[in-house]
């Protein structure tokens, strides 16, 4: 991404203050979302989400493992994000490590809740098979194929779609038999939103492209669940923000997230329906 000239910067900032962004969207409108599920047959669940040009793939693999001794009746989930050099040439080798650590930790905080496991997006006790001995280990991997801003939201949506596509065999402990029913992983619905503020005029936008992200003075990532509670709020440095602005952002986030959840659910349902049709043929 080459630097922006002064004229381009002013164009972006001026547009945002007039509620008209460079691609014609309003400040709080998301780019069109495209969801495809079941793209990786070897994984337990997978999904690909395209948010405009941003393209991410998430896959879920389930393996049997031992639970953590301090939480014997809970399964384990580990989230890892990899930034592919196809997204940015700077991601080659160790270059993308910082960005991927940031994404992994943000997603982990939002999906796995507090230290005691309270308020997690994924119900870890549903992953337990035999308390203290055997549990499911979920390995959630994300791959950033193309990045044009707002990778966190795309990853959140992809993980949600992948988890709703995940089928884990039901395990029965008696007599070493395992039946082949396919229950789905219990996921409580929540949405991720990333809100960025631009430097001029104290306006904030949702779903920024890379050019807009380079102009922002600070970014707040908010994760809100269906009950309207905050699952994660991350503001890492950047310009100083007043708490009234954060309150504004949270209320707008709730409003926009409802629309986003609806769109995402309908897209996931459409993708799954496509899959079922293909399987029947």
């Amino acid at each position, binding site marked *: 991404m080459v630097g922006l000239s002064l004229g381009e910067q002013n164009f972006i900032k001026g547009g945002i203050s007039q509620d008209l962004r460079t691609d014609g969207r309003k400040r709080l409108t998301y780019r069109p979302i495209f969801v495809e599920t079941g793209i990786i047959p070897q994984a337990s669940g997978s999904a690909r989400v395209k948010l405009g040009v941003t393209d991410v793939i998430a896959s879920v693999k389930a393996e049997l493992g031992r639970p953590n001794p301090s939480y014997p009746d809970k399964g384990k989930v580990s989230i890892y994000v990899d930034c592919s050099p196809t997204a940015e040439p*700077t991601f080659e080798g160790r*270059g993308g*490590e*910082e960005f991927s*650590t*940031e994404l*992994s*930790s943000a997603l982990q*905080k939002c999906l796995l*809740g*507090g*230290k*005691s496991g*309270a*308020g997690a997006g994924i119900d870890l006790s549903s992953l337990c098979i035999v308390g203290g001995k055997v549990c499911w280990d979920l390995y959630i991997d994300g791959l950033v194929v193309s990045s044009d801003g707002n990778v966190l939201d795309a990853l959140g949506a992809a993980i949600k779609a992948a988890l709703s596509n995940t089928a884990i065999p039901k395990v029965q402990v008696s007599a070493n038999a395992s039946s082949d029913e396919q229950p789905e992983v219990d996921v409580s619905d929540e949405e991720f939103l990333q809100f960025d503020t631009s430097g001029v005029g104290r306006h904030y936008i949702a779903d920024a492209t890379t050019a807009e992200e380079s102009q922002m003075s600070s970014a*707040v990532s908010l994760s809100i*669940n269906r009950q*309207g*509670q*905050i*699952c*994660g*709020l*991350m*503001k*890492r*440095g*950047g*310009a*100083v*923000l*007043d*708490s009234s602005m*954060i*309150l504004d952002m*949270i*209320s707008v986030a709730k409003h926009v997230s409802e629309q986003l959840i609806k769109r995402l659910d309908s897209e996931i349902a459409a993708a799954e329906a496509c899959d079922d049709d293909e399987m029947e043929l």
Partner: protein
Amino acid sequence: MNVEREGGRGANQLRPMDCSRNVLSRAHGSASCSHGETKVIAAVFGPKSGTKKNENPEKACIEIIWKPKTGQIGKPEKEFEMILKRTLQNICLLTIHPNTTTSIIVQVAHDDGSLLPCAIHATCAALVDAGFPLKSLAVAICCCLTENGHIILDPSKLEEQKMKAFVCLVFPSSVNSVLPEGSTDASAKSTEQGIITSLTRGVMTVDDYFHSVEQGRAAVTPLSNILRKKMQSQFASNLSKAS
């Protein structure tokens, strides 16, 4: 409505805080800060010439190395490094020494909860000790939300593990300006009331979040005065040593 805490602390009561500068002789700047049992030592080396590959050469670059007390450096350490770096980029005046790198090494001596605020205070004190240009100091605080909805400040490690949710907030410290009253414009005043960094973990309602912010800010004002006093008293003793 009183919350029972170990050691009989009130919900809004912070642990005793201590901060001392110039603890290491070979570093350009160093400081150690402790909040109760949690202790962090920070050392500053720099500015050195040249910036790293992807950094903007028109500004100074800050590099943080976080060393845990035990164990190898892994993901949590990298995350702390990134949070500290972004927070410090906000309070440092980066345009005064362009194309330079300043390295800050943060060593955790003991972790008993509230680690990130302790590290931020130690780092700020170390930067002051090194003479690095800063816009303002930063003060940080951790708030926890208990099972029954109370908010407690500055949790210890045991308390942190039982919490429903956890918020870490960093505010800019109040500015002791040499300019006369009335010449500071309104925007400067409003930024003093803002939040530099905020990290949450666990689920909480929006009201809980804002109550934590208010309680945190109320507790932080005496804290920033304490920090400033500790640093000032050491400056006076330095001068007396030099003369």
